[in-house]
């Protein structure tokens, strides 16, 4: 019997920045509903990997597939692909010139996916879920980092994405705000969202991830379920890495 095709398939993904060979052949498949956590030392290419998936970086070689669409095929309409993949950034990147409501509704309205009323109604529902409905008319600068990041997540969810990419979503936050963002992500995971998360929050990885990947020297060095990954790391560099982040 044919196994169901993975939602995301990455084949021999390579990315060079000039002579810096950052990704040197990444192979991985992500099933619908899976939560994957990526860890690795700073500069190992975690962000580059994520950004190659939605073509914010154009891979030097290899293939990225979303269902049966090759993301990095020049003939693919990348904007259509990106509508299906949400991305949450370390620095939130809310649109400074727009209110929270407009931040959330801009894309679906401009892309003709919803009319303004539908978009606003859905935005309000989502904002209620993260307890920020009262901030709809505020501008991003007036909100805390934790609030901004929850709204950035809402902005992605408004598009009904099939997968969400998180690039160190809590790294720029004051410690007391990390929890509120992780809570939203955990809830999202429980609802079945497919998620690829770069994070240093190992507790989150243990609790939420189906698989944890260790990236180093441009390839996936180790892949395992979280219990095994943290309890019995095999790769010496992973052991070294874990001893630093877990202490």
């Amino acid at each position, binding site marked *: 019997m044919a196994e169901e095709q993975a939602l995301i398939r990455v084949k021999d993904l390579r990315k060079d920045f000039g002579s810096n060979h950052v990704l040197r052949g990444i192979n991985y498949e992500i099933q619908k509903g899976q939560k994957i956590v990526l860890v690795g030392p700073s500069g190992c290419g975690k962000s580059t990997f994520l950004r190659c998936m*939605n073509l*914010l970086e*154009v891979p030097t070689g290899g293939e990225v597939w979303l269902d049966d669409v090759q993301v990095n095929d*020049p003939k693919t309409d990348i*904007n*259509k*692909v*990106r*509508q299906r*993949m*949400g*991305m949450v*950034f370390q*620095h939130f*990147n*809310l*649109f*400074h*010139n*727009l209110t929270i409501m407009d931040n959330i509704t*801009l*894309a679906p309205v*401009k*892309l003709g996916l919803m009319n303004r009323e539908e978009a606003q109604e859905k935005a309000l529902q989502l904002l209620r879920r993260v307890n920020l409905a009262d901030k709809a008319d505020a*501008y*991003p*600068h007036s909100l805390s980092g934790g609030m901004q990041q929850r709204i*950035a997540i809402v*902005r*992605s969810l408004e*598009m009904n994405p099939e997968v969400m990419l998180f690039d160190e979503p809590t790294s720029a936050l004051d410690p007391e705000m990390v929890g509120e963002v992780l809570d939203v992500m955990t809830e999202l995971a429980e609802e079945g969202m497919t998620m690829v998360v770069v994070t240093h929050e190992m507790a989150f990885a243990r609790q939420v991830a189906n698989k944890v990947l260790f990236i180093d020297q441009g390839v996936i060095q180790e892949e395992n379920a979280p219990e095994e990954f943290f309890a019995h790391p095999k790769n010496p560099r992973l052991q070294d890495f874990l001893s630093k982040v877990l202490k």
Partner: protein
Amino acid sequence: MDSLSSQFYKAFVKNNRWMLYIKGLGSTLEVTLFAALLGLVLGTLACLFNMKRGRSGKRTVGSAIAYVYIDVIRGTPTMIQLLIMWNVIMAASKNKILVASLAFGINSGAYVAEIIRGGIQSVDPGQMEAGRSLGLTRIQTLKNVVLPQAFKNCFPSLMNEVITLLKETSIAGAVGLAELTHASDMVSSATYQYMMPLLGAAVMYFAVVKLMSFLFGILENKLKESDMR
């Protein structure tokens, strides 16, 4: 030598000459306004094309054209551009306001393009990335997110460019446009006296520049208040 009061009388009062200056100032303002609007539109377009790159990272044809436009305009004297517009490109037109507005607008556009480029580069690249990651096109993200922030960032420089433009139109007398400097020239030739007409024109330029700076200052503060960040 005439007394000062007699010079003043000849320069401004006799034959209702003050009207010449007022009309001249009117033409100056007219050309400045049209040229500033044309410059803003041209400059924005030129900037966007100039910054555009194809998938391979190379310039597109449109980008190359924009680059050459900006480069050539900034590398040649405004006076030459004006004379080319009057004597060559628009030689068939007798509408001096139109010709001068075109020449100065095209000139200003090149400088505006560079100002806006600075404005865009001062916007966090994460803004564009966030827009693109949602599936918005580059143009949609520019229009709704990046440009509003860029214009705000470079508003003072843009207003400065309008003031520069106003003063630059003083060379438009070369194609016979009766702007303010030209008006003072005409009075000088009629009276064989230079000081009063030139002083009069200078005072009027200065007054307009000060008034514009004042108004732009208010606008700038409004923009800051309406803010954001």
